[in-house]
């Protein structure tokens, strides 16, 4: 099928989930970087400012900043703004702790082509148990999975 790419991934936190891609090329901080109740990223986040993060697949290299990362993720989840799944390029203790506690699928991808290919709004399915990520590029006119920002 045109517009579908599959990449190998390493399971870190089990499970399978889909959602629109949310891509951060830089390391992702959480404490002080997001409005957890609204479920949006805050000022100073560049392209992600104002972008809603709930039910999306977060794609970012690893975390930065405070050891409140996992606690901050927990708060977002309690406000009903849990991400669908996460993809990292580097094994990260904060992200791993947050995902294992919240039952969020998390995989590690070493293939740089994945990070070059994936774009915001792509429909991404993370299947941690099968060790695979499926990326479906959405057509311009197809707005079903396009982010709301």
């Amino acid at each position, binding site marked *: 099928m045109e517009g579908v790419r599959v990449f190998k991934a390493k399971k*870190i*936190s089990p499970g399978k989930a889909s959602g629109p891609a949310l891509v951060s090329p830089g*390391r992702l901080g959480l*404490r*002080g*970087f997001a409005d957890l109740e609204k479920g949006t990223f*805050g*000022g*100073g986040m560049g392209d992600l400012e104002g972008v809603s993060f709930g039910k999306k697949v977060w794609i970012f*290299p*690893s*975390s*930065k*900043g*405070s*050891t*409140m*990362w*996992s*606690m901050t993720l*927990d708060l977002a*989840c*309690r406000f*009903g703004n*849990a991400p669908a799944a996460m993809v990292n390029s*580097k*094994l*990260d*203790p*904060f992200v*791993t*702790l*947050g*995902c*294992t*506690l*919240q*039952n969020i699928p*998390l995989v590690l991808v070493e293939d740089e082509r994945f990070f070059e290919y994936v774009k915001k709004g792509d429909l991404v399915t993370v299947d941690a148990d099968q060790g695979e990520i499926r990326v479906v590029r959405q057509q311009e006119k197809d707005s079903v999975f396009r982010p709301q920002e």
Partner: protein
Amino acid sequence: MQLTMEQEEILQGKRGEILQQAMTGLVQYGTAMGAEELIAISSAHTFFMSPKDVAHYFPPRRVQLSERNIAEFCEKLCEIQVKVKTTVNPGPADFEKWRQMGATESIHHSLRGVAEISKRCGILTNWTCIPYLEDNIPVIGEHCSWSESSALIYANSMLGARTNRNGGEASFFSALLGVTPNYGLHLDENRKGTHLIDVQCEIEKLSDWGALGYFAGEAAGADIPVFINLRRPTAEEAKQLGAAINVPGGAAMFHIVGVTPEAKTMEAAFGGNLPQGTYVFDPAAKKKAYEAANHESKGKVDLVFLGCPHATLYEVKEISRMLKGQHIAKDTKLWIMTAHSVRATAERIGYAEIIEETGAELLADGCLLTYYVYFDSKRPNLERVATNSLKQALGVRRSFGSKVFFGETQRCIQAAIEGGV
């Protein structure tokens, strides 16, 4: 993961539901990080600011617990004692001067609640981000489970203790169980340096160490920077270096050749590995780091904040010396944040009186960044903040949209006296 018979029993629930949930959390986290076993620790430094925080470390997930659920959970928790020496990071406000920080009665009530629970569980409630200087001082080789990025990097790099970068939940579970997953920095092979930072400019002022840390954090990311041509820092300087590394990055350790216990030589620091990159911190790089932390720095200053990470007694003494006989400008606040044990000593010696006579506040137990982000309280005017801490400079800008002056302590104090930069 290989568990001992006792750990297996805890996992099966034979020692109660809370320990079972803590063990489940640690085993899942540890397995995901590649640990093959849990190892004994003798020190934990954890993080929570309210009974609500503690209760939400445990299942059920993704629900807001009611006041009653939280109270019931905490009653059960209080039947358990932490297994190892456990200290705790800053809470939401000063236990005594909470009104000055804009806390409401309900936040104060929550503070008293969490203090009571902690005491009953055997936690040393020091409420500070610098446990390594007074209440919780690990020795070389000691396995720990610590939270607080600025503290754990100090423990690994300056003391030679061994801790990973643990979130609050993980260090709390470890405190209850006395074990942590054996991966990462608990193992020799993962403590080797990765990125070489060649320091080719003057590092003198306290804020210079923050600027250097920011540069190293950007270069090394989540890996381990190795500094060469860098003099031995004081504890206060090393505290700024480690805190700043974790602003753009996520390193849990650095080496300073000739200072870090495991880095007697550059060869020892890299442990036979080749550096992944060499980065020169020259005057231009230093200028750039200062520029990253300053933002519309000139003009009226509303708050001067010193003590991120918490000020040591020596810093409090030095600040009192600089302030002696001066007066803080009418529309500017000067807050110096420290541990309550430090404040108590400063009060006894007389530093606190000197500071307070100027109109400045010597505060304890709290953290500006967590406090006004997570708690519904009246924050002071933070339109322009002056600070000697790079972590604080970027934190207030990000969290509160503040304009920021970042620079040496003396200039921050001058800003408080003159009311601006």
